[in-house]
């Protein structure tokens, strides 16, 4: 009986693929395709205009996503990859698996965007989130000198974790090891991913957690809870810009272009703020949802170019490991 049911489950999953319409397969990270992410709405919106079927395939996170593409190589099933960030762009380009495809739009990013292969679809500032009634330190040095407890993610297994590594490196350069050494006694623990860290913070294990300036928007909009705030640091907050690109080996190049152009239109962009909890790359005509205006906006933003990020990554990781393993 159970075999039948499992078989039925597999068949019903495959029958969807058997339709006549052209298929566009987009690989993305798992939280994008989950029922609380942008996936279901994006699928509906794109299918309404494309006369095609959009298959979203979720792979853990951005780094795992790139590994999957490299694993599948030239005959990947994916036509488009959505969900890498600037830290991964250089490695992604080096594989030669991605095809140039300039998409022009009025990007609302705090930085200039010019890349002929990767198109941004959302962005956010990394920031330490804390309870609104607590005073947050103004920068890393103040944090290191305080006894504020923080939880961060491991850069080897988590995108925000890697973002923090880049943040400290971008703000302090050669002084980064010193900053990490100062932070060592503030760090309660380092977690595998964002969920563990955020969950522990909500349980009260730390005063602050590494997340995004947009995190308080979730609590405010979805839970009507204004008790969380994000700290702007005066050395600047590091940016995360999430991007998508077409694969060179796609058998649906036209459809892939269509999707990437659709991605920067209002139909896609207005889904992002309250599902992915990030800023849309192109501000929709209706503006940002209510509640986003209350968010902390850092005075200064930091971001390495993809090539710089790739060049400093390994050294920054070694410094981090050294400082925190003492």
């Amino acid at each position: 009986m159970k075999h039948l049911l499992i078989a039925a489950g597999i068949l019903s999953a495959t029958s969807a693929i058997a339709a006549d319409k052209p298929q566009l397969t987009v690989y993305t990270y798992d939280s994008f395709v989950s029922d609380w992410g942008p996936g279901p709405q994006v699928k509906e919106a794109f299918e309404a205009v494309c006369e095609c079927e959009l298959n979203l395939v979720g792979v853990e996170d951005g780094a795992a996503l790139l590994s999957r593409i490299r694993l599948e190589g030239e005959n990947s099933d994916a036509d488009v990859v959505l969900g890498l960030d600037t830290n991964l762009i250089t490695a992604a380009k080096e594989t030669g698996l991605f095809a140039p495809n300039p998409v022009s739009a009025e990007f609302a990013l705090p930085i200039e965007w010019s890349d002929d292969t990767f198109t941004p679809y959302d962005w956010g500032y990394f920031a330490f989130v804390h309870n609104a009634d607590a005073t947050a330190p103004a920068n890393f040095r103040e944090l290191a000198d305080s006894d504020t407890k923080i939880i961060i993610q491991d850069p080897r297994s988590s995108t925000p974790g890697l973002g923090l590594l880049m943040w400290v490196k971008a703000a302090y350069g050669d002084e980064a090891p010193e900053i990490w050494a100062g932070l060592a006694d503030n760090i309660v623990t380092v977690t595998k991913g964002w969920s563990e860290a955020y969950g522990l913070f909500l349980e009260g294990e730390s005063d602050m957690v590494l997340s995004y300036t947009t995190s308080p928007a979730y609590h405010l909009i979805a839970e009507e809870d204004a008790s969380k705030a994000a700290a702007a640091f005066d050395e600047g907050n590091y940016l995360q810009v999430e991007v998508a690109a077409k694969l060179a080996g796609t058998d649906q190049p036209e459809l892939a272009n269509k999707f990437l152009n659709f991605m920067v239109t209002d139909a896609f962009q207005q889904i992002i703020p309250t599902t992915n909890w990030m800023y849309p790359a192109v501000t929709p005509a209706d503006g940002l949802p209510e509640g986003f205006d209350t968010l902390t906006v850092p005075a200064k933003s930091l971001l390495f170019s993809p090539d710089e990020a790739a060049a400093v990554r390994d050294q920054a990781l070694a410094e981090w490991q050294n400082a925190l393993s003492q």
Partner: protein
Amino acid sequence: MAERAQPISAWPGIGAAALVAALILGTLAAVALRAETSGGFSPADWAALRFTLTQAILSALFSVALAVPVARALARRRFPGRRALIALLGAPFILPVIVAILGLLQVFGRSGWISDVLGVFGLPPIRIYGLHGVVLAHVFFNLPLATRLVLQAWQEIPAERFRLAAQLGCNGMAMFRLIELPMLKRTLPGVIAVIFAICLTSFAVALTLGGGPRATTIELAIYQAFTYDFDLGRAALLSALQLALTAAAALAALRFSRGDGFGTGLDRALQRWDGGAPALDAFWIAAAAAFLLLPLASVVISGLAGVFDMPALVFRAALTSVFVAAASTLILLVLALPMATAVASGRHGLVELSGILGLAASPLVIGTGLFILIRPVVNPTMLALPVTALVNAAMALPFALRILVPAAKDITARHGRLALSLNMGKWTYFRRVLVPRMRPQIGFAAGLGAALSMGDLGVIALFADPQIATLPLQIYRLMGAYQMQAAAGGALLLLLLSMGAFWLLDRGGRWHAEA
């Protein structure tokens, strides 16, 4: 080993063992062959190896050292609710890692219950993060398993031994030295090896409780090699190292646990006459129950708050998980029973070794290897559920064997010669003698397998399809979408399902009073 006539053929078991070995080594080979660069070990990898070994050895020793008095107390005492307690104690083992970490820290964390109580007396919160935290978490996960395995060995001592010892006027100490100590000597090495192997592949628990990159394990280095560096060669090398360490531990355990059993008994219900020190036994049982049940209570409490936040999808995922667990349990038994029989008929070595490898195999390597192997043939996402069930079965196999093998050995020793002299057919022997006598162990193994499969995130994340999700995956997704309350509700549901499956199967296997 001299070939002796056996009532049952070892070949199906050897076949099953070969299949398991092929799955584990084949996927490893697939990853190694796909590698573009052949990376060596970095100094950081050696540091990871040292930390991994330290924490795994300490965790195994502490788990077993604490399990012995708890199991002894449970073996000697009968009290109302004893069976429910034994079943409940198994729960930490089957929780998804992320849920267990949150539950554990709700009790032992900086703002946990114990720190709150300390705060009332003006004391600072406990410092849980560090090597001691890693060991504490691993003892939390593995003490129940160790207790069950040791308790089972206790129950398998023929009742006649205790009867005779009581008649000869042995006191508690003498009974321990004459009967229980030899049993422990045979049992403990295997239990230590199993827990050592489980802790060897720890990743998220070790990192979170360890408090930082000092607590880097080999499994984290494998993950890093896969996703951060995309160095498949190094991933395969590290995984091979894990397998080699586990194999070494397993071989050592097999060597130390040789020795004769207690021989035949009359299958009587056990009765004990050494009733000394009830207070001490009560202390051990109460301490173990508090240590294991408090974090569970916190999972239940936060879960109750989230029960009404759970979207319908969670229930669909729960249904999927139940089917995966059922399929996985079936596969587990089809593999484990013949393997246990083969070991019992003297063919142990390689069969037992391949049985324990499932523990040491990195889920990431098995998953990726299967992905590489399956992909040229069929879209891997279509096989997400069958593959998950298969891998879960391979991972539960070492536990199932630890449970089944001692019983299969004893039964072969007790009834094998009679069966041979009766010229009983091999199938008849299996069906009429072996399986009915092993019902409690089969029930326990099946229950454990089902519960483990239910709670395991496993390889489904690698093959994920937005349409099909198991309950653990859905819990992770909820957490990833800020929905911690709903996730806590899902965790409670998972806990209930796992415990329910375990209780049902474990209970189904027992037809007389002893648990």
